[in-house]
């Protein structure tokens, strides 16, 4: 039962083509006009949306700065490395070596060597060779050759000495020689290190000789001079102070600063978005409420003729679907559109500002993807429409078969129904396959466009970085730009489609709100009070034609009803019986002639006044969600429970109501709790509560079985006493005791009189009456 109450609307796929407005521009203009009272909030939201977008464009640049700062901590301080290398290598030159060695190569020492008994002849020979080569050898070779001599010899040649206040033993000197020869700096004696590398200061860091020696040792051990990795690995073994000088430093202070700026920006942007969303939610929901109220108000101001031409479902879908559509799109699309546009333009500007080559790369690669995508999607539109259509056909068929299932079964129509079903189902399947596939393409294609832009930016960025035209941070920034740039494009496209549907929806809503209303009754001053009305009604040459009909439904109708009379209107379907009621109640305006109540034209009375004089019970039973009591009391106040019970007793409902679990407070939820006949009795009870001079019963007992009807009839006869009543009835037995029977056919009264008179006349009425008893 629940589903029935909802407005039916085929589910639209995510990519279903938007419903188009007839006049997009005027619909949107109108929409914005209606939004005027929300102007301030909307403007604030738009500003916030723009601010948020601007922040999200600026953030990547800060992030790039951050990356740059971090990458400053990656590469060694080349300047210091050079300086240090130079210092340590010059420290180790020959001159200095010789000074330190203080070589005692004179006659005395030569003699001492040659005459020493501890020195073997071979060593002596080497020594003399050394002496001989002295004159021809280069200075660095001399030291090398010296190193080759045995330590016994060297002990004599290199005596302990004092250099720069440091005593250097001959053993130290020998070690130094050996080290110089083998290039093994770690073997440098501590004493010598001290004198060899004088303390230096680089960038405020004092480097003692030991550290310099270590550094020298490290660079000396690098084998492959082109391998940075090996070099860095050696560096990691360097003394702390050395590393301090040559290792890269990050400006932590700066990094912290950028970090704080970024946090602030992100927070601000989130806050802006939140406030913007909240205010747009406020606007859209309050606007939706306003629209719904005005539609609902409008329903009560429209003439009945409007409802002849428009279905309930149509109006309902405006109250819910269309208004929802407007509210939802306004909530999402408006701000999205503004921020997406800002983002889009802002990103382009920022990209060009940062680097034009990179900008062109990003834009070009994104557009390439988008052209590809729009090519695919433009082809797919027709499948989405086809899907909707085929689904509609299939659903129609299912609805038809299910609701006529009995007939389908008895007439063996299942085979045919199945054949048709398979046909429609197959078509839906084909359309489904295609449209689902194409709508599934969207996501991966968006992803691919993103990747394409990413790679393009990386490659071009790498080239530019190597040429030292940009820093690495720029690449990072552009990676974000590409993302920022591609998402608004699809957002704008989406927002545009939803604007289309919004326009279509608002067109429908405003068309309804702008419908012509009933005549204004402000000028009417006359009024009839219920207690003073005598109860005479006169029809004077009444002519009435429904809109759109060629011929009038009521042609020149005249009749007089006197106070307290019971007037029955009979005739075949379509004779215009109900139209008479509509005219009496001033639901429709008559075209010519007049209807007079106690001699006063109904044209001179307000509708409200007239309605107050009549009690009306219709064939269409009308109950609403609510308790039985609420349904009977309806809009009237000060009705006691006793009064309600009283009328229910009269129509014979009291017993039934008492059997319900909650008695008079039972809810009328759906059709199951209460039958059609009982509903009709309920509406009769509702009418009985009113004490009016006039009573209209339009087939009021048609759904009640004949035995119950008789009971109600009796009660009603009591009720109609003293009132002027109009009774339309299908069953002629009901109206046999009427004072006046009007027999209508094709909009005209063809016979009048009471039952006996009409039967004697043996005309149309008699024929109708007798047909009840024919075979």
């Amino acid at each position, binding site marked *: 039962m629940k589903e029935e109450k909802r407005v039916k609307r085929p589910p639209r796929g995510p990519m279903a083509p938007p419903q188009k407005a007839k006049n997009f521009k005027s619909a949107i203009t109108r929409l914005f006009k209606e939004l005027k009272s929300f102007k301030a909030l909307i403007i604030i939201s738009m500003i916030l949306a723009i601010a948020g977008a601007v922040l999200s464009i600026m953030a990547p640049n800060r992030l790039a700065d951050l990356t740059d700062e971090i990458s400053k901590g990656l590469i060694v301080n080349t300047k210091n490395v050079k300086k240090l290398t130079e210092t340590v290598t010059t420290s180790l030159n020959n001159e200095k070596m010789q000074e330190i060695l203080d070589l005692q190569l004179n006659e005395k020492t030569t003699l001492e060597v040659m005459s020493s008994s501890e020195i073997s002849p071979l060593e002596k020979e080497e020594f003399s060779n050394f002496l001989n080569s002295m004159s021809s050898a280069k200075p660095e070779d001399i030291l090398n050759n010296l190193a080759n001599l045995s330590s016994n010899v060297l002990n004599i040649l290199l005596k302990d000495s004092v250099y720069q206040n440091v005593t250097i033993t001959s053993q130290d000197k020998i070690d130094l020689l050996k080290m110089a020869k083998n290039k093994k700096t770690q073997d440098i004696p501590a004493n010598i290190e001290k004198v060899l590398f004088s303390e230096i200061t680089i960038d405020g860091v004092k480097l003692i000789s030991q550290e310099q020696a270590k550094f020298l040792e490290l660079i000396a051990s690098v084998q492959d001079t082109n391998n940075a990795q090996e070099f860095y690995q050696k560096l990691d073994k360097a003394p702390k102070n050395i590393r301090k000088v040559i290792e890269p430093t990050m400006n932590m202070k700066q990094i912290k600063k950028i970090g704080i700026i970024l946090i602030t920006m992100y927070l601000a942007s989130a806050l802006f978005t939140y406030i913007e969303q909240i205010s747009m939610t406020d606007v859209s929901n309050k606007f939706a409420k306003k629209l719904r109220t005005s539609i609902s108000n409008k329903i009560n101001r429209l003439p009945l003729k409007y409802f002849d031409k428009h279905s309930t479902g149509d109006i309902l879908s405006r109250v819910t679907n269309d208004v929802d559509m407007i509210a939802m799109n306004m909530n999402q699309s408006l701000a999205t559109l503004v921020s997406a546009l800002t983002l889009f333009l802002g990103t382009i500007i920022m990209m060009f500002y940062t680097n034009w080559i990179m900008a062109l790369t990003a834009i070009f690669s994104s557009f390439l993807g988008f052209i590809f995508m729009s090519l695919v999607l433009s082809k797919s539109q027709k499948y989405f429409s086809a899907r909707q259509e085929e689904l509609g056909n299939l*659903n129609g068929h299912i609805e038809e078969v299910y609701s006529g299932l009995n007939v389908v079964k008895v*007439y063996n129509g299942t085979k045919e129904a199945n054949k048709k079903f398979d046909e429609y189902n197959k078509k839906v399947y084909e359309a489904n396959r295609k449209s*689902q596939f194409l709508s*599934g393409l969207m996501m991966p294609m968006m992803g691919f466009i993103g990747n394409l832009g990413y790679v393009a930016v990386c490659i071009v960025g790498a080239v530019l970085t190597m040429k030292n035209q940009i820093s690495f941070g720029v690449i990072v920034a552009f990676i974000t730009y590409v993302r920022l740039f591609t998402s608004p494009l699809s957002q704008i496209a989406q927002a545009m489609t939803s604007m289309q549907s919004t326009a279509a929806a608002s067109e429908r809503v405003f068309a309804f709100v702008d419908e012509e209303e009933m005549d204004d009754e402000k000028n009417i001053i006359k009024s009839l009070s219920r207690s003073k009305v005598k109860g005479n009604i006169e029809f004077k040459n009444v002519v009435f034609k429904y809109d759109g009909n060629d011929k009038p439904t009521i042609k020149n109708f005249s009749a007089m009803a006197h106070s307290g009379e019971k007037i029955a209107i009979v005739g075949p379907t379509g004779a215009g019986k109900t139209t008479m009621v509509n005219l009496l109640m001033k639901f429709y305006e008559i075209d010519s002639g007049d209807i007079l109540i106690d001699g006063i034209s109904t044209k001179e009375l307000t509708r409200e006044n007239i309605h107050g004089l009549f009690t009306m019970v219709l064939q269409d039973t009308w109950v*609403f969600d609510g308790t039985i009591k609420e349904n009977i009391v309806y809009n009237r106040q000060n009705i006691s429970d006793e009064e309600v019970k009283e009328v229910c007793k009269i129509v014979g409902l009291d017993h039934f109501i008492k059997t319900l679990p909650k008695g008079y407070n039972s809810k009328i939820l759906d059709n199951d709790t209460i039958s059609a006949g009982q509903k009709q009795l309920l509406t009769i009870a509702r009418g009985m509560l009113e004490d009016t001079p006039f009573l209209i019963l339009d087939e009021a007992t048609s759904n009640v079985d004949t035995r119950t009807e008789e009971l109600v009839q009796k009660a009603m006869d009591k009720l109609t006493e003293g009132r002027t009543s109009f009774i339309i009835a299908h069953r002629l037995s009901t109206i046999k005791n009427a004072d006046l029977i009007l027999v209508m056919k094709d909009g005209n009264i063809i016979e009048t009189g009471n039952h006996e008179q009409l039967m004697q006349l043996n005309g149309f009425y008699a024929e109708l009456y007798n047909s009840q008893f024919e075979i």
Partner: protein
Amino acid sequence: MLKLLKGLNKKIYFYIAISFILIFAQVWLELKMPDYMSEITVLVQTEGSKMADILKNGGYMMLCALGSLVSAIIVGYFIANVAALFSLETRKKLFTKVENLAVHEVKQFSTSSLITRTTNDITQIEMFLAMGVQLLIKAPITAIWAVTKILNKSWQWSTLTGIAVIILLTVIGILTAIVMPRFKIVQKLIDKINGVTRENLTGIRVVRAFNAEKFQQDKFDDVNNRLTKQQLFNQKTFAIMMPIMYLVMYFLTLFIYLIGANLIDTALMADKISLFGDMVVFSSYAMQVIMSFLMLAMIFMMMPRASISAKRIREVLDEDITITDGNLTTIPTNEVGTVEFKNVSFMYPDAEEYLLEDISFKVKKGQTVAFIGSTGSGKSTLVNLIPRFYDVTKGEILVDGINIKDYKQYDLHNKIGYVPQKAVLFNGTIKENVAYGDNGQEISDKQVEEAIRIAQAEEFVLKMDNKYNSHIAARGTNISGGQKQRLAIARAIAKKPEIYIFDDSFSALDYKTDATLRKELKKYTKEATTLIVAQRIGTIMHADQIIVLDNGKCVGIGTHKELLKSCEVYKQIALSQISEEELAK
């Protein structure tokens, strides 16, 4: 929901399996990309790198992107096929099932609910399959894979990502917990606002007659206010989600960088550059992890709707078919046109009381039997037992001397011309509607025209633009109730059945048409057996047999005259319609 996938075309499983493998490939390719990205980063950072290396890595990366696109397209193709195949087959299953349900089972579900189940519910699941299945496979694979790639890089970064995921999921969880139940309230309020408006529209004349416009408006305003308030609360609560989501993602990147700065600063010289590359890569993997968790969250939000739909579909599919064909293959012809009820009792399954109790009667060929009684007396149910819309609880019904349960339903139905209380017309021409169904023989145009004439429909049919070929809209909305009813009667006549069943089919007609129609029909159906359910005494007073029902029991059988004397209930009904003098006539 998984159970619904059982027993479907084997292709579906094959497609899903292929998709699974391809999604694996896709995820692999997508996760490979950051590796190349990191290569490129290192190359750019290191002095002396060759351009060719960068191009090579860029090219690989592009290949990955392209490969992932291609596999995504193929997966998309298969998944679209899975979704479409699912709805094709499930809808067919459901449709066939509903066709075979007994009438009370249909009532139990309600026709409108069955329609929704066959249309909207299936579409709902189809959409879930089309979007959800991919995500459902992809999200966990991506999440797990990306996590394993991340884990060994640095515990600080991993912890950070973990915290981000937890914050996101908590926020989503809390918001959903707050808002979801309230979304249901909103749905109810929307139904209510629809209800109030519908009420105002359908009762517009009553509303105006009672001067209740203000009353209605107040009612509407009340619901409107509540709806707006609830919507505002929901949407404002939910509005916090997007900013937080973005905040978490941005902060995650930022803090990965800040932590990275510290790590690099304290790292050995040799590790710095690779650490930097790791940092860039990590931030993109972290994003992948976050994204896949978001996808999972999305699926869990989509899931309930689809699984409710699946449950509703399964409810119908699991319903047992209670009315089955008999085994009779050849139909003996020694007795024709008789209907006999032998001590028939009927009650709905699960009901406590009998709706019909111990009904026995027999109609012979060419006779008319009428059923009368007040609303709820069981007269419609009684005739609906004959075409087996329901099966009797006790006793048996014989048609042509054979128990109706022994017939094949097709054969039984061919003997019957049935006209329901509410005329059923289908989208199609008048001729198609009258010649509807399949009774083993072609219904000629002449037969159709004759049937229309007898049913007193000729007058208005000939006035229509295309006469017999005029189009009737779905459910016959373009013609009046009386006209629909006459066409429904014509349909029964055209079939030339052995047995006519008129289930209160004449009440929509005015007395005159009713009388003429029955007169014509009598002439035409002399050979046929007629069962009429009626409310009007006039309609049935000339029947050969009248059966008076009261609360499911037979309180009188006989002719009009006999019953007037013997049956108090019948007399009361008669007297409420015709005066004593006329009855005496």
